[in-house]
């Protein structure tokens, strides 16, 4: 512009430097992937059903990207006032798409800049339904340089013939960067939210029937081409279908049902024969994709974002749809419909583990061919089929097949779970360089600082305690196994004894057998404590426990032992519903049995005229209490606190020739374990003054279960 010839009549105007295109492009659209996803969103806003992205020769810069959609397209008016008008108001006027009423996905007016950001040349070919020809517009972004007026640059537009009815094709040439597979996949992920899947049955696809419910669907296909070869990188099919935990496909041929289960995830490729009476059915085919909603099973196989997408898709698109002669039959497969009776089936494996089996776990369809309309009939309201025998058999066939297939898949899943657990357990960290034990390492840490040394000593002490507890725990676990096995033999022993007694044998033999029977019955009673405890361990849940009931059960268990050792057990209770806060039932068996063995030993040492044990329970001030007292040899007051310390024991250490049993039971860990259990529940255990006639008394207090908790557990 000439400085001398400036015309200011009527005021001055804003003018635009063409360099603004470049700048806006760079600033509004940051990353290339974002740019592409913006263009896809534009197609979405144009009510497209299918968008194909083809990255051609993009391993280096300079490649081409072609974006094709079957949306509404643009006529000349829309092209000039929409695409060519920066910051156009179109989206303000039309916040939802005209046909499918989609919420606008694209950001205002970014599209054109996206194309500029991506490549240096753009060709748009667009046609609306009503226009006889398509429009072709060429833009060379390089022309938009600085120091050129924006509105002085012309872009050629012509009309051409094309082979589609409506839609837009964008050719972006001279791509400014290379496009690799991961980058293309990233684009796909950015537009995941827009995708609306369409599960057309194979037949529908073949017959080219647009099914009733797939109207608003939106599919994006990402392709990559090099040297003339094209292959798919990402599309919805691959997202949902490739990542299913299992694909189940079934057929009915001549009344015989067959089902194939394929799971790449769990390495399954099985054929299952589906039993049942399907005599009324002729041509049935189904294909169902099975998902489990727990990201743990997809980790390493599917990015979390894609998993999330599938999960959200399942809310509206899961279910098993029914197609008859290529047409979708509603309402089967809609959310809330359960025509295959899946919700009514509860599935468990042979070891009673729960198996996910619900409509939300399945995406798929069943297709039946019934050209003559003989087998199935539509209801007069045209919603659904008449539920005749054929329909019921169909439902049963699919249900049976899915059940068996799902069980198959989940068995493998559980085995893997089991192996994983075992693997983790045995995967100890082998520090190959340092062969010292932890104890040695701790010892080596000691220096001249007395305080620090005593802390290290404490740590070593705790370590030893843990090791001992682990030993006991291991023994405990083995005992559980043994008890179970022992139980299996007892009926057999009894059977033999009973049989022999009835035989024609000498009087002495009979007497011997009767003694054997009595001895054996005594033997049985010793397993009852273990039976009781171990069986409780099967239930891992905590629950409020009624102390009275626990004491009753305990009394029952040691009934025989008491008579054997001639101890008199008295029980007093003050109150009836003495419920503790939620605890493990088996822990109480430990507590009571521990206290009992200590009392027994104490009474044995003291040898009173009559051994007595008294249990008193009640509740006060929000706590449930249990007092356990005996008339044994008592605990000296100086030891009253120390009895709960690990390794503190008044039992004489077992001599070298003592049985292994003795050396274990006198470990001095009994009361420590009892105290640990009680403290874990915010309880207290202490030695208190016993009643008259008794020498030792342990008092345990546990917080009482609140009424809320009791209600929660159904009390």
């Amino acid at each position, binding site marked *: 512009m000439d400085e001398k010839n400036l015309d200011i009549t009527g005021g001055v105007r804003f003018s635009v430097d063409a360099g603004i295109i470049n700048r806006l492009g760079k600033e509004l659209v940051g990353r290339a992937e974002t740019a592409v996803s913006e263009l896809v969103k534009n197609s979405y806003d144009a009510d497209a059903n299918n968008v194909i992205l083809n990255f051609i020769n993009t391993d280096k810069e300079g490649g081409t990207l072609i974006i094709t959609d079957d949306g509404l397209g643009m006529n000349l008016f829309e092209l000039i006032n929409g695409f060519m008008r920066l910051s156009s108001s179109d989206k303000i006027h039309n916040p939802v798409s005209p046909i499918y009423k989609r919420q606008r996905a694209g950001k205002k007016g970014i599209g054109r800049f996206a194309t500029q950001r991506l490549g240096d040349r753009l060709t748009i070919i667009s046609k609306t339904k009503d226009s006889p020809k398509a429009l072709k517009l060429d833009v060379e972004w390089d022309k938009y340089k600085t120091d050129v007026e924006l509105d002085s640059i012309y872009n050629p537009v012509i009309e051409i013939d094309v082979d589609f009815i409506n839609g837009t094709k964008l050719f972006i040439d001279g791509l400014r960067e290379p496009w690799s597979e991961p980058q293309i996949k990233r684009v796909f992920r950015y537009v995941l939210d827009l995708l609306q899947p369409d599960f057309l049955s194979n037949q529908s696809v073949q017959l080219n029937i647009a099914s009733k419910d797939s109207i608003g669907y939106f599919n994006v296909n990402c392709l990559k081409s090099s040297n003339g070869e094209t292959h798919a990188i990402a599309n919805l099919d691959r997202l949902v279908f490739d990542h299913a935990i299992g694909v189940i496909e079934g057929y009915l041929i001549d009344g015989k049902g067959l089902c194939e289960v394929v799971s790449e995830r769990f390495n399954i490729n099985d054929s299952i024969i589906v039993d049942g009476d399907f005599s009324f059915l002729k041509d049935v085919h189904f294909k169902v994709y099975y998902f489990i909603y727990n990201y743990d099973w997809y980790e390493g196989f599917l990015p979390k974002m894609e998993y999330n997408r599938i999960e959200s898709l399942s809310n509206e698109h899961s279910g098993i749809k029914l197609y008859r002669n290529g047409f979708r039959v509603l309402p089967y497969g809609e959310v809330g419909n359960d025509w295959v009776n899946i919700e009514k089936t509860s599935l468990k494996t042979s070891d009673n583990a729960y198996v996910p089996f619900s409509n939300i776990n399945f995406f798929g369809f069943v297709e039946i061919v019934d050209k003559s309309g003989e087998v199935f009939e539509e209801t007069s309201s045209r919603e659904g089929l008449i539920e005749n025998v054929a329909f019921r058999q169909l439902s049963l066939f699919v249900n049976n097949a899915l059940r068996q297939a799902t069980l198959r898949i989940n068995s493998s899943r559980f085995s893997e779970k089991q192996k994983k657990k075992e693997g983790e357990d045995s995967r100890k960290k082998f520090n190959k360089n340092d062969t010292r034990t932890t104890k040695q390492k701790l010892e080596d840490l000691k220096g001249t600082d007395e305080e620090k040394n005593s802390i290290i000593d404490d740590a070593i002490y705790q370590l030893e305690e843990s090791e001992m507890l682990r030993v006991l725990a291991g023994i405990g676990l083995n005992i559980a196994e043994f008890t179970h096995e022992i139980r299996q033999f007892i009926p*057999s022993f009894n059977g033999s*004894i*009973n*049989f022999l007694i009835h035989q024609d044998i000498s009087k002495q033999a009979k007497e011997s057998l009767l003694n054997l029977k009595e001895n054996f019955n005594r033997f049985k009673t010793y397993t009852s404590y273990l039976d*009781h405890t171990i069986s409780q361990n099967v239930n891992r849940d905590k629950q409020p426990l009624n102390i009275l009931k626990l004491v009753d059960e305990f009394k029952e268990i040691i009934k025989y032992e008491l008579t054997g050792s001639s101890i008199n057990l008295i029980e007093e209770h003050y109150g009836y519903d003495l419920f503790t806060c939620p605890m493990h039932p088996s822990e109480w068996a430990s507590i009571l049995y521990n206290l009992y063995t200590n009392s027994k030993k104490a009474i044995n040492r003291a040898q009173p005229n009559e051994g007595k044990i008294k249990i*008193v329970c009640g509740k006060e001030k929000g706590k449930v209490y249990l007092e356990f007292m005996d008339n044994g040899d008592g605990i000296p007051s100086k030891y009253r606190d120390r009895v709960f310390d690990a390794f503190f024991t008044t039992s004489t250490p077992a001599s070298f020739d003592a049985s292994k049993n003795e050396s274990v039971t006198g470990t001095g860990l009994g009361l420590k374990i009892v105290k640990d259990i009680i403290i874990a529940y915010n309880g207290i255990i202490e030695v208190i003054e016993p009643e008259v006639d008794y020498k030792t008394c342990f008092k345990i207090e546990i917080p009482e279960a609140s009424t809320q908790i009791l209600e929660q557990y159904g009390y």
Partner: protein
Amino acid sequence: MAINYYYFDDDPKPTISETAKGLSIFEDRLKVNAFQHEKWDDQVSFIIEQQDSFDGLILDWSLNNKNQKGDIANYNVEALAQQLRRLIIENDRLKKDFPIVLCSANYRFNEVFCKEVTGHDLFDAIYEKDQFDSEQSVVINQLEDLANGYKIISLEKAIERLLNTTAKEDIDYRIIDFFENNKEAPTHELARFLLNSVIKPTGILIDEYLLASRLGIDIISGRNKDWTSLLEIIDSTKYSGVFSKGWNRWWMSKLDVFWEKTFEKSLGSLNGNERVMLLNERFNLNLDSYKVSKDDKNSFFWVKCKKTNRPLALEDAVLASSDYLQAPWVEDEYYSLNVALREDISKIHPIEKDRIKKIKANYTSTRIK
């Protein structure tokens, strides 16, 4: 002719054959033959082949171990029972019906199994293997009776003959209806109906403890020989139809009749002592009447405590929670107060819950230290 049972278990052969021997001590009445389990196909075929050689089956609940051949049962016991019942109904490969009994060595199996309601309709009896020893004669009687009962029911469909009573009015009309309407039902359904809805529960038939309660007699402390004599005297009231050997029951209606005829008073109008006195006098017996405890209000015993079997007057009884599916002629069950106070609240009928709460509060003494 002796009844034969085939017993299938996954434990080793030497173990299970001894268990079986223990049940076969009265060989002329009952013989149990032990076999290890097979894989599904072989198992079913074996049973079909051998159907003429057994009168009943005993199945062990857990078939987890491998048998001698190294096969694990690839099915669970319920599936097997279901399959057999199916084949029996089809009456094609299996030509007769027979009892299928479940057993297990697992601790407290009955309690745990009760929670698996679906399995209940499949088995005629469920035993913890301990019972094979502790209740030996009862179990043998029951196994024998189940098999015999099935044979009778398969041939005889008239209810009054099955229950062996001429007085049709003793039988609740709804039971008669059931039999009229289900003449074509498979034997196991009729057997199960009779056993679970008519014979076992209290209603038209009562068990020994309830009999003692209604007569005011104490058999809890011990059964003396006079009790046996009394039972002989009232033999006309004893139930002698199907399953009567395995399950001892007496007709309540016949007991009423007997009492009225003998004493011209109604049983319910007398208290325990009065009843026993009359019996002792008339029949020269020395029966002990059940003594009330300080918690009892009176001794008009009519029901019994579900847990301890002691006689209870209705005023002293606490209603136990019931199964809403039980038949209409079946009477309620009760607990004694002492038992009810310490029992799980879920076992008490909801109607009684408030009353029990109040009593608990009243009975709670304060501790004097």
